[in-house]
């Protein structure tokens, strides 16, 4: 009985998360007449690839996808490199008057106001730098946006690594950066994977800044591109769904490939491993 209840709860949870995804996937393969059929065609419809062709051949969704990939990967890499070094310093070096703790808090405080607050000044800055409608503007923005998160998350992971290990490495003849690369980073790899995953998801799904900073097909990312199909003349459900299905794939692939790290990374700190 208890077991049955548990399965029921799982089924409800799965249904609520997966039903929209299922609906989106089916819409992307349905002809328009089937999309609005009443009663809804849950399983039986004539599959078609017309929306995919429409999105990626006739329209610029291929371009958006490329922009999204470039922006997400570059900003994640940037935030990881800068954030990891900052986090390592904050975890290892004490500054006078507890300045290191204050610094960490200041870094976090940049995430305490709503993102929209920075949208206008950011747009003005990017305009003056002639970076509006470029991927670089988004890469910079997302790197800055993800940095506090990377710093805080990685600082926790670094704090878990015993200091003795790096000290041993340095006495053994390695430089501090060498010890970081050869000893510490391999040990925090699960944390790094989890952090990277989070950054990728944030950058990949980000809509607000992308909307403000990019309006041309060359620089626009997928979320903006998809939303742009809601026009005053009509809503292209099929095209939007097709693009959304494609947008799911990269993140899903990355998540699956780092899955074994991810579980450890997210639970690291909670469980002594």
């Amino acid at each position: 009985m208890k077991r049955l209840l548990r399965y029921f709860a799982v089924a409800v949870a799965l249904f609520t998360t997966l039903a929209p995804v299922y609906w989106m996937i089916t819409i992307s393969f349905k002809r328009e007449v089937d999309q609005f059929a009443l009663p809804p065609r849950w399983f039986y419809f004539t599959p078609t690839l017309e929306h995919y062709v429409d999105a990626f051949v006739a329209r610029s969704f291929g371009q958006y996808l490329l922009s999204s990939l470039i922006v997400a990967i570059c900003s994640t890499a940037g935030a990881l490199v800068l954030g990891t070094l900052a986090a390592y310093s904050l975890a290892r070096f004490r500054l006078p008057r507890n300045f290191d703790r204050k610094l960490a808090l200041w870094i976090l405080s940049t995430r305490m106001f709503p993102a929209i607050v920075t949208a206008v000044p950011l747009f003005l800055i990017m305009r003056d730098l002639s970076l509006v409608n470029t991927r670089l503007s988004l890469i910079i923005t997302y790197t800055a946006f993800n940095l506090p998160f990377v710093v805080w998350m990685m600082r926790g992971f670094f704090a878990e690594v015993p200091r003795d290990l790096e000290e041993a490495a340095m006495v053994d003849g390695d430089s501090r950066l060498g010890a970081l690369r050869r000893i510490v980073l391999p040990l925090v790899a699960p944390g790094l994977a989890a952090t990277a995953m989070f950054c990728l998801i944030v950058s990949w799904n980000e809509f607000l800044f992308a909307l403000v900073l990019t309006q041309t097909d060359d620089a626009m990312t997928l979320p903006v591109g998809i939303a742009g199909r809601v026009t005053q003349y009509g809503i292209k459900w099929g095209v939007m769904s097709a693009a959304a299905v494609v947008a799911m794939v990269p993140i899903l692939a990355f998540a699956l490939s780092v899955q074994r790290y991810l579980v450890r990374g997210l639970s690291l700190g909670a469980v002594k491993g």
Partner: protein
Amino acid sequence: MSISVFNLTKSFDRTTVVDHLSLEIADGEFVVLLGPSGCGKTTTLRMIAGLEQATSGDILIAGTRVNDLPPQRRDVAMVFQSYALYPHMTVADNIGYPLRVRRLAADQIQKQVRETSTLLEIDTLLQRKPRELSGGERQRVALARAIVRHPRAFLMDEPLSNLDAKLRLQMRGELKHLQQRLQTTTVYVTHDQAEAMTLGHRVAVMNKGKLQQFDTPLEIYSRPANRFVAEFVGSPSMNFLEGSVDVSNRIFENQQVSLALNDSQPASFSNFDTNKPVTLGIRPEDIRVSLSHRDGWHQTRVYVVELMGSETLVILQLGAAKLTARTAADFRAEPDCPVWIEFDTTKAHFFDSETGLRH
């Protein structure tokens, strides 16, 4: 290589952890830094390794000042209390790590790793990860990693404290043997006085950041420089009696005892001020205990008897003070039973009660 420190001082904020410490350690010598926790011995070791910056003073290795060199350029090897093995590497990679960062050729690394692991009898474990090893095996890997590159000195920070008692004794012997064989200068930190006595050519006793005495184990045991050293070294600890010395009659007296100090007494009596309080220190083996009355001996009561197997410790109640005496293994007495004791005053130590310094 020789290691010297001069007026070495380390302060954190307002607390001074190491206070004007000076030591000269000869090439090939095994020196033990001994002291209670918080006495600054580990900080001293870390300053020699370069892991801690000295606030002031000089550190010299082989005659060259190394204060400003980072740890990787001091060419000393350190064995940590936690062993600090790299968990993601195999035993072979752990031992070979110092050679890899020095960019030695792969076959050379392999050869040296094999030689060192054979020396420490861990050559069958080379492909294991540290978590698959027992405590003793980890200890050997940590030692091998220190030995493999023939450093100028070994620095060891309580390397045996995480082992169980039996293994600790075994590794203690092996460590001493290894040092005798390799003849590498070694600085060894411990709070265990037995380790210090057995391992060191010389022992530096530290307390509250200050050097108390730096001498051979025998000298430290038989002529402690002050009351702290006298109390810290030796197990069970030395007994202390507060009192005063009557110079003209050559006696030490307090409310419970009056001890005749005969001519063989090494302390020079002219130093004593009759009115000043004096602490007499006497080791448990220098108190004789008798179950029957003897002339000139002091009567006391037995507080408790502790059987050790090879010997018996008798704790005696003398006024408010408790004294420990070491007796033969077959000594038996009931609690509160009267016994008579005699002090071997030729082996007694006298300390200034105020400064703690030896008279």
